[in-house]
């Protein structure tokens, strides 16, 4: 035990080991910035939406915190919280899928990797979804696909806007072809929204790859990237193995996608709420006074 842990309360000590995640600095409420290496006070980092106040590096953010911080205070209501995965194939690799589900649920406190809420954004009704990356890499299986589809259908029925924050490695292998079909299912729901002219904004956060990027994430009326987020179809390792060369610096990052025309804009997380409210305000006619 080092000097810092010694002066900490036992509670802070245990918290540090469970919540520090990828911080690599186990010393309690301190977190090392993944961008500039500065040591940051975690509560302050959280207040700053997990963005480093020194260099602006965007640290991973949990789905629940993200949605709560986005919507008007007290307006959010979680939807379809009871949806849970099953194991249709009795899938077993080095571990059983069932055991992986239990472990992921315990780790995150979420039933699966997508959270959906409705609420208000600066007074405007909104359906909002967010991927929980720490739940099996934010992978899309049947529950994620079903919840996203319901979110789109709800937005369509209410004619309220839809926003989705993705953070995912892609389809969930343990649900095999069921997972793949979620790409078709979610895209079909978005087709209906498109036909009805109800806006959908996709926000891609670090990372957004594979089957999710090749379906719901790239289909926004407006596609937004968070700064320096990795966004792509194939992961960089797979591409490196294919082309047998090292990839250029910044390849598949938001800035690269913006330059190549795949996304509309890059938005700093601290300005996300204002920017989304502005965009929906421009896309949607104000409700007509009766």
């Amino acid at each position, binding site marked *: 035990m080092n000097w810092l842990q010694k002066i900490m309360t036992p509670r802070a000590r245990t918290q540090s080991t469970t919540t520090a995640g990828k911080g690599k600095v186990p010393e309690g409420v301190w977190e090392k910035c993944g961008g500039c290496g500065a040591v940051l006070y975690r509560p302050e980092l959280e207040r700053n939406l997990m963005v480093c106040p020194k260099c602006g590096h965007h640290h991973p953010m949990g789905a629940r915190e993200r949605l709560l911080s986005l919507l008007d205070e007290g307006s959010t209501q979680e939807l379809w919280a009871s949806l849970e995965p099953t194991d249709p*194939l009795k899938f077993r*690799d080095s571990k059983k899928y069932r055991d992986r589900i239990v472990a992921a649920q315990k780790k995150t406190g979420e039933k699966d990797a997508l959270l959906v809420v409705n609420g208000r954004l600066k007074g405007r009704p909104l359906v909002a979804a967010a991927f929980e990356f720490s739940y099996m890499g934010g992978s899309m299986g049947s529950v994620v696909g079903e919840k996203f589809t319901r979110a789109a259908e709800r937005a369509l029925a209410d004619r309220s806007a839809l926003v989705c924050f993705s953070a995912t490695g892609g*389809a969930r292998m343990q649900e095999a072809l*069921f997972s793949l079909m979620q790409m078709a*299912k979610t895209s079909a729901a978005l087709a209906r929204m498109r036909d009805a002219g109800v806006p959908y904004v996709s926000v891609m956060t670090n990372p957004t790859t594979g089957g999710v990027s*090749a379906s719901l994430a790239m289909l926004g009326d407006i596609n937004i990237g968070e700064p320096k987020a990795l966004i*792509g179809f194939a992961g960089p390792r797979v591409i490196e193995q294919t082309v047998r060369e090292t990839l250029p610096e910044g390849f598949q990052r938001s800035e690269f996608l913006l330059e190549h025309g795949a996304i509309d804009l890059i938005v700093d997380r601290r300005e996300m709420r204002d920017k989304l409210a502005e965009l929906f305000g421009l896309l949607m006619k104000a409700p007509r006074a009766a």
Partner: protein
Amino acid sequence: MNPNFLDFEQPIAELEAKVEELRHASYGQAFNIDEEVARLREKLKIKTAEIFRNLNSWQITQLSRHPARPYTLDYVGVICEEFQELAGDRAYADDAAIVGGLGRISGRPVMIIGHQKGRDTKTKVRRNFGMPRPEGYRKALRLMKMAERFGLPLLTFIDTPGAYPGVGAEERGQSEAIARNLLEMADLKTPIVCTVIGEGGSGGALAIGVGDRVNMLQYSTYSVISPEGCASILWKSQDKARDAAEALGMTAPRLHELGLVDKVIREPLGGAHRNPRSMAIRLKAVLMNQLDELGAIAEPELLKQRYQRLRSYGAYQE
């Protein structure tokens, strides 16, 4: 070892070689060995049936990639009286890993889109081993929209290891190209029949695979990831590809059982490559039937049913 046969097909290769040898030897000879040839042929049939009765998922995976397996243009050549290939995405390039064009089947004009692999080294490279780039998917989309405009039903043939994971493909928006097709196919106002004829490799396959009917040939596969890829990620070892193939449940009968595929089309004894023509004729009959069925459904109802089908995919509890 005959390189045109898979390892578990070797007994077939040996028997076939014997038949050929005998026929050769008998040529111009006085004595008659027809009986012996007939006997061997019968033995060949029995042996083939025996081997193919109990194939495991890994063997079926190999069959779906068999070097002699018929590809899209092989089927088109048999099932269409006319076919005019159409090229290009009108924005960047023509991708030879996807072919498409106007065809006529039993007098009926249709739009056909399919993945295309090459046979020899040169054409394999030109076709990029059947791995499309974004321009391939965008060409496909252009042809789909054309089918919609001219009221042509759309037939797609799926046979790809996956969308190409390369630098240029990423730069030109591989994800968006695939995603766009999923959305547009869900909404395309014309009947769509999709058939997996070989490898159904993940998103790269699905990008031309959304429709009103999804068929699989008996020894084709359809999966969210290749068994090799799955093994290296989940087992951390490529050697576990056999186990992964089993776990992924990627064969036609299994997927039919799970309700993800509508119809399994039986292959000739020994697989489609043993008799491509008879496979094509069988495929044509199924497609014509399905086009008749779908043609009788009014457009709004067709789109509603398509949505409901897509909507129903998934296994979860509340």
